[in-house]
């Protein structure tokens, strides 16, 4: 068992290492090389040529004249120390931008994914319980239609109707102007007000898929012998529904939940752009548009690390919840 945890933890570090290397490689693949643009810009600003290289080195902890393996080692060491370089467009350390923006992304993704999960499970189990009824048919239809609506369509429509036309909600930003980021009633209320539309549009479309998955799982569980036996033993409906059916139907969805969380972290790239919500995804795109490579790779790296950790937690806790998943498969090799 210990062996499994050690292996799993080692894989987290291996993955992060690989992705960090990938970002290093990708920077070098970017059109025109990463620093030609920056160099010409600095030269045009009248910075003396001798100083340009030093400035660039300062930005990404890279000496442009060093051989590539040396650059790589420098880059990785800086990363390990939590130094992601300087943002070119915002003239700020990348780490401080990420620290400011990450909480907003986590807030939106976490709240909306929990909502998706809870509402989906609730609807799906009701549908399974009344399988074939009018309720089941109507909500299956609604679920299928919801699945065919991408969240950005909901987002644009919500922005159009509730923010621009009806003026119920703000059209952009994470908090109102002039509100200090501290724990006060005004701040929390403003944050909630700005978060409603992004969370709503990120939740609505995803409910359908979860509800259908839960419905399928529950129907499968309901057909099992042990549910029949539980009925014969005269257990109460409530006990059967919660202890026997819900538990077994939710179990396979649990790994799905944390994976979903990670996937949706990536989707915020589009969501935050629509609402001008200054989270990680917003900065990824703005870095892209301004050729700000340090910031771009920093946001990419942080999103990846969050996803890796999410899946890691899912795997570890899953083996706690489901005793059947033990120390990994030991199948015969052919």
């Amino acid at each position, binding site marked *: 068992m210990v062996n499994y945890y050690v292996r799993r933890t080692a*894989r987290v570090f*291996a*993955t992060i290492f*690989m*992705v960090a290397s990938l970002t290093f490689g*990708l920077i070098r693949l*970017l*059109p025109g090389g990463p620093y030609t643009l920056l160099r010409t810009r600095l030269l045009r600003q009248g910075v003396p040529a001798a100083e340009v290289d030093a400035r660039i080195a300062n930005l990404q902890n890279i000496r442009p004249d060093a051989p590539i393996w040396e650059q790589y080692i420098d880059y990785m060491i800086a990363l390990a120390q939590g130094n992601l370089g300087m943002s070119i467009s915002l003239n700020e350390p990348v780490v401080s931008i990420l620290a400011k923006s990450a909480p907003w992304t986590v807030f939106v993704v976490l709240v909306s994914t929990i909502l998706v999960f809870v509402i989906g499970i609730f609807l799906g189990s009701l549908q399974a319980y009344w399988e074939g009824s009018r309720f089941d048919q109507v909500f299956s239809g609604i679920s*299928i*239609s919801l*699945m*065919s*609506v*991408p*969240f*950005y*369509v909901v987002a*644009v*429509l919500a*922005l*159009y109707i509730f923010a*621009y*036309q009806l003026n119920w909600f703000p059209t952009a930003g994470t908090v109102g102007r002039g509100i200090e980021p501290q724990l006060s009633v005004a701040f929390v209320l403003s944050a909630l007000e700005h978060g409603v539309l992004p969370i709503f549009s990120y939740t609505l*479309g995803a409910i359908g*898929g979860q509800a*259908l*998955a839960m419905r*399928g*799982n529950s129907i*499968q569980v309901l057909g099992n012998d042990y549910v029949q036996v539980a009925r014969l033993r005269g257990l109460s409906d409530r006990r059967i529904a919660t202890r026997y059916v819900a538990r077994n139907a939710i179990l*396979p*969805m649990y*790994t*799905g939940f944390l*994976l*979903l969380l*990670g*996937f*949706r*972290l*990536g*989707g915020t*790239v*589009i969501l935050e*752009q629509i609402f001008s919500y200054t989270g990680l995804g917003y900065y*990824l*795109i703005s870095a*892209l548009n301004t050729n700000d490579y340090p910031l771009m790779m920093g*946001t*990419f790296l942080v*999103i*990846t690390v969050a*996803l*890796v950790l999410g*899946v890691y937690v899912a795997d570890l806790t899953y083996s706690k919840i489901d005793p059947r998943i033990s120390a990994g*498969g030991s*199948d*015969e*090799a*052919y």
Partner: protein
Amino acid sequence: MKPTETEGVDWRSESTAAPELTTRERLRETYDEQIRTPLFVAWADWRTRFGFLILGGYLLMALVAVFGLWREPSTSQAPRYLMAFENMQYPLGTTASGTDLAALIIHSTPEILLMITAGAVWATAVAVVIGTVAGYKGGRVDNALMSFSDLVMAIPGLPLVIILAVTFSPENPILLGIVINISYWAGLGRSLRSQVLTIRENDYVEASRTMGVSTPKIILKDIIPNLMPYVTVNFVFAARYVMFASVGLYFLGVLPYSTQNWGVTLNFAYSGGALFSWDAAHWLLAPMVAIMGLSLGLILLGQGLDRVFNPRVRTRMTGKSESTVDEDDAGITEVL
């Protein structure tokens, strides 16, 4: 198809037995069993029927565009801000720059269909190869392949695609579809592997192995046919993902605007001031309806095919019950 039945037939035809059947009769039998019956069952389900009809409609639109039966979109070809159905010359209305919306929608269709097909083929093909080889071979091969797909799964899809798109700026729709689904196969490959793990314990696989049939042949003849239902359903979902992602990325302005796309139209509407007035609502709605229609068609087809292949439903015609398609994977692969 019930796995045991098809396998029985395949195995026999391999051993050059059954000489009383002529090739023609055998072809006919295969046709009946593999094509006619499933199609019949598929058509009986309203979901597949609607799915096929909707997809047929989009195919028709693509043909209209390819053969130039509808005017090309260009600016100032019509009065500005015509509402939908106001002037039947321009049934969907026009944009702020006087471009025919119907032309924009129609001329986007061929590239989108090409893109989603390419992406779905790529994703399912890689997933099938990785999943079956890992599941069947087991041991070190399995470990290596699964570690690799875990690694791929750990990279968030959309940001990776964005960075790749900026780096390589692919303009060919086929290439673009592949880039968008570059890591989609990982999750699918994993669930295919777990199915192969149970399939490989079947008697007929064991029999083939003891007879000394080569591994590629076993995988091709004994394993993959059992996976086809699951693969077909996921093919449709992979196609839907490409469509959602590509329109989203075009909407963001990340992909090069080399071709028409509903996302480009949506972007122009979003940034061109359509948000500020009710008069331009049709400009936003037209691409949205096009997106949702296509994805609804794909989902209905996927759901219907699931029922066609899912023995729990097919049994109403034959009698036995056995499940091949895991429903719990449904929530994992759908992202957008």
